[in-house]
């Protein structure tokens, strides 16, 4: 099974009013992008051999007064295509009702994990105010996908999301599965070190900020990392993710397809590791 772990459905036509499009562009820094029908996504998935998309919302209600897709919209999209779309929740840690929103998202909406962006939501991952949220995720056995490294979104500072900021969380909550998305780029070596040391730390491939898909993935897998680092050290901790619509699912997949690796490792990268991260496999 091929699973894209990192998709922002900011322009899925079924949830996009003109006001929503404007809000999503402003929050996400997407500018010239525009809505498209779900049918387009389904045709892409079938043609490029992608079985599931994990859809991510982002709650910035306390900081920016809005959302880059709400938890309820994620649930609605999942219901439209239950065989294709899986979904996460998001809460703004500074919202007074963050814990109630998260509980509702897990218990009532059936969302599969939590998406947080420390840079956009302006918090340090090891801040004690986050403990209750982490404990709620452990209570429901749900993973957290953190933005890590540079974020293009406006109003984001990298200081909140450098990979080393997550080390205390990994140590304090070894039963909590956390993903430092985007390879933590440009701090990909730091991310590798955390994956090596902590089995509950994952990363995803949702970065393609420079060059062609082939060149960028070659840079990560063969230059920033040694050619065997991933295969021989943390093969169970890197997941295919695109950051669509910023980077197209098919293009990131094309870049990964160009990297030499063993077949069993590629299966883990493209879907097996996501199933374990999501708690669906041991």
């Amino acid at each position, binding site marked *: 099974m091929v699973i894209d772990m990192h998709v922002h459905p900011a322009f899925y036509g079924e949830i996009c009013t003109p006001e929503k499009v404007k809000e999503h562009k402003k929050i996400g*820094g997407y500018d*010239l992008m525009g809505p*498209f029908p779900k049918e*387009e996504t389904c045709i892409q998935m079938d*043609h490029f051999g992608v079985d599931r998309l994990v859809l991510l919302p982002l709650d910035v209600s306390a900081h920016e007064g809005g959302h880059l897709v709400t938890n309820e919209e994620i649930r609605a999209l999942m219901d439209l295509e239950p065989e294709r779309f899986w979904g996460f929740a998001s809460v703004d840690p500074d919202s007074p009702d963050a814990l109630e929103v998260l509980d509702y998202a897990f218990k009532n909406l059936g969302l599969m994990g939590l998406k947080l962006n420390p840079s956009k939501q302006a918090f340090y991952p090891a801040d004690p105010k986050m403990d209750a949220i982490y404990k709620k995720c452990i209570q429901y056995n749900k993973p957290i996908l953190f933005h890590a490294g540079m974020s293009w979104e406006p109003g984001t500072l990298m200081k909140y999301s450098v990979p080393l900021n997550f080390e205390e969380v990994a140590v304090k909550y070894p039963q909590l599965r956390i993903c430092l998305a985007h390879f933590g780029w440009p701090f990909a070596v730091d991310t590798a070190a955390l994956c090596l040391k902590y089995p509950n730390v994952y990363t995803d491939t949702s970065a393609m900020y*420079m060059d*062609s898909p082939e060149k960028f993935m070659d840079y990560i897998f063969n230059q920033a990392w040694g050619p065997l680092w991933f295969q021989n050290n943390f093969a169970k901790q890197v997941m295919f993710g695109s950051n669509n619509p*910023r*980077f197209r699912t098919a*293009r990131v997949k094309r870049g990964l397809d160009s990297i030499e690796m063993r077949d069993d490792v590629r299966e883990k990268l493209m879907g097996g590791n996501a199933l374990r991260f999501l708690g669906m496999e041991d």
Partner: protein
Amino acid sequence: MVEMTSFEIISRKEFDLVRITDRVREFAENSGVKNGLVYVITNHTTTGVFVNESLECLETDIENFLGDLIPTVKDYAHNHFLPSYGATGNNCPGHLKSLVVGNHSVIPIKDGKMFGGAAQEIYFAEFDGIQLRKVQIVVMGE
């Protein structure tokens, strides 16, 4: 007089040739223009519109020709982050194929009928699929 319309296509492949002659003919021949021209124009910069013979072998040759001329993987200057989109521009081959093919085709209208050659098929060409696309038809004449 000038009559205009547009229609949408969701391409099915990254490189996709879609035959659109019947849609153009229907609009052109119901436009009320007896003698003039029909223009078929794409709204996009990584697509094209062209006329050729509708044979699968030729469609394969056209795809291979453009692919040989403009390889998918190359160090294009366009392979960089575009702040205006918030995305990396990795679709230079689509832009260059669009440049080669062109954005429109023109067919004469005579006595209220499209007056093209018997072998002529109008194609919408997708070079950066899979995407929702828009094509315009403009009929000018009297």
